[in-house]
């Protein structure tokens, strides 16, 4: 672990990544304290002060009903992070289990599971999520379900490949020879060896989940107002370009910063844990 910290500290880019994420996470966590207008995350209308450019009072300007954009972005971060965490918390266990079972059991089990995975993977992710959101009503919960449905197959493919390699290792054979249960071999012997790769992918994916979720909201299939959401803000603001640039630029930058942070850190992790994909 010390080595990890040392390596992170030895690279300016991974420091930058960690700092970005720290800033994003902290501002999300302390949105209540940091936001100059905490109530602007909900329904507030102020038609005397709408669509205003950045000023001292409203650091990032105001939106079309007069709400402080900076406050809303802080709350949007909170939502994005929660969404990302929930999606991964749902998708990873499912994907990992499927991959483990498929890789370890082999035979027709593997055929059925991996071909099912392929079916999901061969529909472009956004199309799949859109189709699901088209069916379900666009709410935060359904958004998470849709993104989860498109996300687990990546983990099952990753873990499947890792399992295939690990299955041949001596320690697995050894465990089998002593008569350990299949469950034990899969989850106690093989799984721990897959953890670094899974962890790396999760860090990178946290960024990408935020990306996909914002793309869904961009298409109007995500979180509903008045809840602040970065993708919807960009989509809505894009209509008012270039005159009201702040409506798009700040939420767009906010997405960029968060995802960039996770990517930088994930990239560093990949080298530290030696999990080149």
């Amino acid at each position, binding site marked *: 672990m010390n080595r990890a910290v040392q390596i992170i500290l030895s690279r*300016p*880019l991974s420091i930058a990544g960690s700092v970005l994420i720290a800033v994003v996470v902290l501002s999300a966590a302390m949105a209540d304290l940091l936001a100059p207008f905490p109530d602007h995350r909900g329904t507030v209308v102020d038609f005397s002060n709408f669509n205003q450019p950045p000023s001292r009072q409203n650091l990032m300007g105001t939106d079309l009903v007069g709400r402080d954009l900076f406050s809303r972005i802080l709350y949007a971060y909170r939502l994005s992070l929660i969404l990302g965490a929930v999606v991964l918390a749902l998708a990873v266990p499912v994907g990992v289990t499927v991959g483990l079972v498929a890789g370890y059991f082999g035979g027709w089990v593997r055929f059925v599971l991996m*071909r*099912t995975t*392929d*079916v*999901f*993977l*061969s*529909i*472009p*992710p*956004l*199309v799949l999520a*859109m*189709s*699901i959101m*088209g*069916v379900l009503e666009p709410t935060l919960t359904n958004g998470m379900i849709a993104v989860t449905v498109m996300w687990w197959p990546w983990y099952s493919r990753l873990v499947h490949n890792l399992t295939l390699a690990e299955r041949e290792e001596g320690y697995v054979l050894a465990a089998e020879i002593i008569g350990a249960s299949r469950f034990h071999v899969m989850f106690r012997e093989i799984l721990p060896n897959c953890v670094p790769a899974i962890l790396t992918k999760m860090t990178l994916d946290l*960024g990408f989940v935020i*990306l996909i979720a*914002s*793309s869904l909201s*961009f*298409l*109007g299939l995500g979180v509903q107002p008045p809840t602040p959401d970065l*993708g919807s803000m*960009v*989509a809505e603001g*894009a209509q008012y*370009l*270039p005159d009201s*640039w702040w409506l*798009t630029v700040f939420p*767009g930058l906010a*997405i*960029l910063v968060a*995802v*960039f942070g996770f*990517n*930088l850190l994930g*990239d560093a992790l990949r080298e530290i844990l030696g999990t*080149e994909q």
Partner: protein
Amino acid sequence: MSAVLKLLAGRLAISLLVLAGVSMLIFAIARVIPGDPARIALGPNATPEQVEKLRQELRLDQPIWLQYGHFLSDLSRGELGTSLYTNRPVTRDIAQFLPATLELILAAGILMICIGLPLGIVAAKNEGGFIDNLVRVVSLLGVSAPSFVWAVILMILFAFFLPLFPIAGRIGTQFDVPQITGFLFVDCLLTGKLDALADALWHVALPAFALALSGIGQAARLTRANMVETYRRPHIEMARSYGFPEWRIARKYAFRPSLIPSLTIIGLDFAAMLGNAFLVEAIFAWPGLSRYGVAVILRKDLNAIVGTVLIISAAFLIANLIVDLLIALINPRIRHGRDRS
């Protein structure tokens, strides 16, 4: 070569199986849509009889497995039903809109390869150096923003503040290119209208670049990683020990082997681009299949949803088949069967 054919046949069989799975999945998804598509399509003033008539035409009154059977038999005759969005056969819509999307994605793919790979190579050659880090930051940035953000940024910068590029459509209104294949570039070439071709390329530049940015980042990162890895392999040192020129080593000994994993990811990126095209086409008013896809999903246009998703998935599977074929051509291990080692 027979090994390649065998491999391809196997892949094709699996692809067809997967496609069948996709059709079932999307069919099921499309049919659980709440609300009555017939009612939606006919608008507010339709009589119950009209709605019932359309429901029967759409076979919505039948159980889902029967509907799927009809769908398959229609499909075997090359029919996908009528779109309630355009009131035209879905196959005709797809035939009209798909070329625009393919052209956009192809252009983006070319940009991705032509920019991403060299960036990756340059970075690998300067491993750990300033250029390497610069490329890393640039490519990570490319991956870090959704293509719609890039599309908006590019449009603002290069179409509004610096009016260098057109922002809407596939070609300027002054050109009149007859539709032969539907592929504008090809049609321009066939009719010998080179000025129109230039204009069409000018139009595709910004949307393709917006679409390609994340792919460029991916390709550069991956190529770099693979090149670095390949450069550490013994055969590079051996080549050096024989004093082969560096560029030759880079090309023949480092790049070609590292292209294999890169190609796989480029194939996967095609899927991402097909999806992201949804966002970019909307912004650049690109009359493609993706924009059609968004519209029909929002309108719960069953036939069109199923048709679009099937075609996009098929395009993705074909792209992957092509990648597999390319890899087989590059990698003798596959070309000559893997079991002879």
